């Protein structure tokens, strides 16, 4: 018994991002009537293709007990899929009870209002809060990806790092430069938990830690290569890179021993991922070669591949071009840029070759004797007199 059609009871208020459903003076006697109404609601929501705030108007709405459950269920389903938030106006006691049972008490109580004006005001508040939260997340994302605060590290009497602070942004390539013994490798080791600083904190993706645990670092997406190529000399290239997938391989001991289909499948999946990396770094020809037999340049590439296999968010490269000739350096630069470009990986690298640093980094941090003496864009750093005196020498 309706004086208006269902379609007339549904209104989209674009400006308020709100979808108004008007149940006032409606009676639902059985599930079929509920379904008919809600089918139209769902159809219109689907056609709109957007998500909305809901404003549901109940005064005078009568729902027979047989229809309660269906009413609440359909309402919840529509809400779940399309609602950015719901406010309700004046529901009758019976309706309230039915919906309360299905929608959850606290939630229900929080958004029933007596008048339409109150409801709309509440809706406004809800939208404002949501916007602030969204802005917050965005801000957090633009926030420093990695922040080092006042880190100090010493071994016995030797101070490796003293009070170093800097930030790197997500998606950028940052270089750390400085003379030998400046504490660059130690800095990387602190970031991924190999060394534990006596002072200071490392904040990675919003999580502040006084002291990182290597396993936690790996799990959270920090990977690194080593100055001395810490590859597993007893294994082939393929196996070395496969170890990088170890965190993702979950099959149990018995499954592996009996090579159950689940274990085989997992092995194949990871193999595929690794092969993509092998293709990316162009080392297909050497898959099965024991790593110890490869020339130095290729070993460095395998080290990189192994780090990439972890699908890291932050990649720490410790002198990735050390000991390479010009062609090898060009290849490695290309790979690093590709990694940053294609996978969006944030990269922090230690490098001595100024040409490379200037070419590929967006930000440079300069360390000397364990302290930060400068930071900025490559051009800023290059012309900084402090840096020139300590490290670059005149004439760069």
């Amino acid at each position, binding site marked *: 018994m309706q004086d208006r059609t269902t379609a007339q009871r549904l209104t989209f208020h674009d400006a308020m991002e709100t979808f108004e459903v008007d149940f006032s003076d409606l009676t639902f006697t059985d599930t079929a009537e509920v379904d008919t109404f809600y089918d139209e609601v769902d159809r219109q929501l689907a056609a709109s293709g957007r998500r909305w705030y809901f404003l549901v108007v109940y005064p005078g709405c009568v729902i027979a007990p047989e229809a309660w459950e269906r009413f609440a269920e359909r309402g919840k389903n529509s809400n779940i899929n399309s609602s950015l938030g719901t406010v309700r106006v004046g529901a009758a006691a019976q309706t309230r009870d039915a919906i309360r049972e299905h929608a959850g008490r606290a939630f229900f109580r929080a958004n029933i209002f007596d008048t339409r004006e109150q409801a709309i005001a509440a809706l406004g508040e809800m939208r404002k809060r949501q916007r602030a939260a969204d802005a917050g997340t965005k801000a957090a994302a633009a926030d420093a990806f990695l922040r080092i605060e006042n880190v100090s590290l010493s*071994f016995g009497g030797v101070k490796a790092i003293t009070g170093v602070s800097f930030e790197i942004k997500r998606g950028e390539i940052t270089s750390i430069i400085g003379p030998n013994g400046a504490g660059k*490798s130690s800095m990387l*080791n602190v970031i991924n938990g*190999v060394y534990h600083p006596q002072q200071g904190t490392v904040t990675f993706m919003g999580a502040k830690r006084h002291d990182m645990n290597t396993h936690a670092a790996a799990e959270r997406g920090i990977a690194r290569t*080593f*100055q*001395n190529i*810490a590859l597993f000399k007893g294994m082939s290239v393929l196996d070395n890179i496969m170890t990088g997938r170890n965190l993702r391989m979950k099959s149990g001991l018995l499954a592996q021993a009996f090579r159950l289909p689940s274990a085989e499948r997992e092995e194949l999946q990871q193999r595929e991922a690794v092969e993509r990396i092998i293709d990316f770094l162009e080392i297909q020809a050497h898959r099965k070669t024991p790593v110890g037999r490869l020339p130095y340049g290729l070993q460095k590439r395998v080290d990189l591949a192994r780090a990439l296999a972890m699908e890291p968010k932050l990649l720490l490269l410790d002198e990735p071009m050390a000991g390479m000739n010009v062609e090898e350096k060009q290849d490695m630069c290309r790979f690093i840029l590709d990694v940053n470009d294609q996978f969006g990986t944030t990269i922090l690298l230690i490098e001595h070759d100024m040409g490379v640093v200037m070419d590929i980094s967006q930000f440079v941090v300069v360390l000397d004797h364990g302290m930060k003496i400068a930071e900025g864009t490559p051009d800023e750093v290059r012309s900084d007199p402090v840096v020139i005196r300590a490290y670059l020498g005149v004439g760069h």
Partner: protein
Amino acid sequence: MRGKRNLIVLFVALLAGLIAPLATGASSAGFWVEVLLGGLMAGVLYSLVALGFVLIFKASGVFNFAQGAMVLFAALSVARMAEKMPLWAAMLLAVVIMVALAFVIERLVLRPLVNQDPVVLLMATLGVTYFLDGFGQTVWGSDIYEIELGIAKEPVMILGNLFDGGILINKDDVAATAAAALLVILLALFFQKTKTGRALRAVADDHLAAQSIGIPLNSIWVIVWSLAGVVALVAGVIWGAKLGVQFSISQVALKALPVVILGGFTSIPGAIIGGLIIGVGEKMAEVFLGPVMVKAFDLAGGGIENWFAYVLALLFLLVLPEGLFGEKHIDRV
């Protein structure tokens, strides 16, 4: 530091165990002292074997686990040669043989493996031990031979008025301890006071630096190995005189390990103390702890000294994974 605290706890526990038989009155004071002295004397033997080991490591950085087998070989040589010539001549000849043997082992086995993991060296020198076992018995025969040092073997009663019934000690044990003590003092003086001794210590610290100040490395090796050979000989003779010369791989070759773990690989006092601790620990455990365990667990006999040294070393390692006097490793990555 937590390690130090646990170490103190361990020490206190051991001391308590040591004194327990006295405190509970389970044994008379005299008997306790007897066992203690017996343990110390046994410990002296261990110390001597470990000493040779530490000497070589200290001066050349080489782990010579074949030291134990060399001790045996020395003893065997002396025992057999002494049948044909006076003891002093036999010992002199044995020194020559030992030095030659040491030289061969160093050249053939240890030098090719110079940068490998100590475990690899352990296994290689176990191989050497096996070889010397067979070789020694081939050359010198497989019976149990005796070394006559001319010291009476009967025990002597001392301090009868201090302790009820006096304390029994063996004269040859006393001689052994005296000889070992003399050796240690001489070695300490050698390393601290003589030019060669200081040179040896320099070489142990840094080969290249030592070479650059003109210390001739080759003659250093010779000196070191001769020293080790002499120590092995002394140890061998004393051991042989006491127990008869017989090969037992677990006693001779492997027992040095717990000793150097306790005492550290580079410390001469450490080797001594380690050996003494092991010796006393073993004897005390066997004599006092043994019967307690037999009663408590209804065991078929004792034999605790077979494993006590190793378990003791294990406990120390759990507390201080680098050994008592060991050096900390910092892995550069």
